[in-house]
């Protein structure tokens, strides 16, 4: 008896909630999981990265313009000598002797006139060297032996045409791109869900009118409207956001309406109606939670579209404006400097494309996980 009871307990399928099942399906979907990890990594990098790269996004290194992406520290050994000569020229001094050892440079500087020690500030000002220390000074003041530390600056993704660290800029730009992606999606989500659920719930003439309005809006060349809007009313971040959200809520409204129509006839909604709940209460308590699955999927797939639209507008110079920056802005800069510094296009485009692919894969994975019927047969 006992043995049989134990066997039954082991064999009985454990009841699992829909969300638990969905989570299980998602964790089995390796590409979706990889996409999720990638996205979290990109988001974390954008949030924390700019503090860790050692460069401020607006910091300009005039002597390090258009550096190629590399792991090596700048200035590189073979460029130290020319850099010293260049700086000495600016100081109007001659380099008599030059020795580099273990990250420090020892220089013997000479001039026909006594040397003003203040001109040594040219060295740290170039970003390539640290402050100079005077080791020796000749009696007439025309020769100076100084020692200075060679800086070790790293630009993993290189620098742009004015000498800013590209990695830091990409990460800072990512914040704006992701922020716009998420916020505009959220706005589109709220408007779309509200509109769709209300339309489906009211039914009848109201539904017909609301859907007709949607049809009219669908046929509008929205992107053109957004461009007009942004050109005529000076572009700014919030206007971009509202404009993008205004374009993208339509699909959401359709999806939610269809779901609502299907749910409306179900018993639990009828029961709520019989209990005298208001339409609003039924919508919030019963309809919207039940449409959450398709909404989550649609929202996940909406984020990449919003980011793409924002970068499209920014590329045209209509989106995010300097000094703020987004991936679209950086791509526009990069495509202008493509011949001399191809990495300036490659780096932000890489960030953008990886994020978009990850979002799309995650969206598809969520669709499979939340509604196995919708996924293609395997």
């Amino acid at each position, binding site marked *: 008896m006992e043995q049989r009871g134990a066997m039954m307990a082991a064999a009985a399928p454990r009841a699992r909630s829909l969300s638990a099942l969905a989570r299980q399906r998602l964790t089995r979907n390796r590409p979706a999981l990889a996409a999720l990890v990638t996205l979290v990594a990109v988001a974390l990098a954008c949030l924390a990265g700019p503090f860790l790269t050692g460069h401020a996004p607006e910091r300009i290194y005039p002597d390090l313009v258009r550096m190629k992406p590399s792991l090596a520290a700048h200035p590189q050994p073979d460029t130290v000598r020319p850099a010293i000569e260049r700086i000495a020229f600016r100081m109007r001094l001659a380099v008599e002797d030059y020795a580099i050892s273990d990250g420090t440079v020892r220089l013997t500087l000479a001039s026909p006139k006594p040397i003003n020690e203040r001109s040594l500030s040219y060295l740290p000002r170039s970003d390539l060297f640290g402050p100079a220390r005077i080791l020796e000074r000749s009696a007439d003041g025309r020769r100076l032996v100084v020692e200075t530390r060679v800086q070790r600056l790293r630009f993993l993704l290189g620098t742009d045409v004015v000498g800013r660290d590209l990695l830091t800029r990409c990460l800072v730009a990512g914040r704006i791109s992701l922020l716009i992606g998420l916020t505009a999606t959220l706005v589109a989500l709220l408007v779309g869900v509200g509109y769709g659920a209300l339309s489906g719930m009211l039914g009848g003439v109201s539904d017909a009118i609301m859907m007709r309005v949607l049809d*009219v809006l669908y046929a509008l*060349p929205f992107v*053109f409207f957004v461009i007009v*809007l942004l050109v005529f009313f000076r572009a700014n971040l919030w206007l971009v956001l509202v404009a993008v959200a205004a374009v993208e809520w339509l699909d959401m409204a359709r999806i939610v309406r269809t779901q609502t129509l299907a749910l409306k006839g179900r018993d639990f909604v009828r029961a709520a109606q019989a209990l005298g709940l208001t339409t609003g209460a039924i919508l919030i308590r019963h309809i919207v939670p039940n449409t959450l699955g398709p909404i989550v999927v649609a929202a996940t797939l909406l984020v990449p579209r919003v980011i793409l639209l924002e970068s499209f507008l920014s590329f*045209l110079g209509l989106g995010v404006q300097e000094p703020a920056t987004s991936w679209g802005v950086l791509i526009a800069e990069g495509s202008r400097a*493509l011949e001399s510094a191809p990495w300036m*296009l490659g780096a932000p485009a890489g960030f953008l494309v990886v994020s*978009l692919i990850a979002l799309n894969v995650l969206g598809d994975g969520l669709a499979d996980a939340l509604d196995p019927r919708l996924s293609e047969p395997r």
Partner: protein
Amino acid sequence: MIGYALRRLLQAIPTLFVVVTLSFFLMRLAPGGPFDLERPLPAAAMENLKRIYGLDQPLIVQYGRYLLSLMQGDLGPSFSFRDLTVNDLFARGLPVSATLGALALALALALGLALGTLAAFRRGRLADRLVGLGASLGLAVPTFVTAPLLQIVFGLSLGWLPVGGWDGGSPRNLVLPVLTLALPQVAAVARLTRSALNEVLAQPHIRTLRAMGQPPYRVALQALRGALLPVISTLGPVAAALLTGSVVVETIFGLPGIGRYFVDGALNRDYTLVMGTVVLVAVMVVVFNLLADLLAAIVDPRLRLGA
């Protein structure tokens, strides 16, 4: 069918009305005017200019006049291209944009259908994975990244094709813009074809065909007929996307099409040019959606009854 088409066109009128009204008032409410120059014009000259273009009238009168002339097919004089009407500009720009769009659409359909079919028939194998990878890449890489890359590879490094310009529409100048415009749509069509075909291929009538030992190409033809429907129903949005994409492509490649005129017009506050473009694009979107629906009804007879 003809009645259905006419009814659909009638339904488009409110849409177009909203488009015209919204864009008209949106532009007029914005600060700045078409004759604002760096150095302001003398007041008298400004008055004269405004009178000639009818801008001295109350807004509602201007709106009424615009609607009236629009119904006669007159889009008005351009503000920034002096001595030219918007109709003149479109007569020049439309052939450029239409050539680009039509070629890109053809390429997207041909390549997309072929790749999607290949992926569906080689399901789970290398070809399928490659198409899937290519498609997600094609959807994620924006045209304004593809365009400069193509320019630098084929235009500057290899020197095979010109990096820009129209040159009377010579095929050499068309290759890169069309490719840029078509790539994301190729990806979209391929993905859609693949998933639609996968569904159709699992159906009994296809299994029957296979069991009867029909050669693969006949199975493919039969299956494609069923899978075509979802592809056709996206043709409207695809055409709209091509029109939008042409704004970027025409700007990057320096082509004198509608998209370029639109951007220039917006920057110059050329009210009539911007209005004209918006109306034109709206009409095209409506027409393409209608064509897509009619085509869908031809492919799937069940839709004719519902229409």
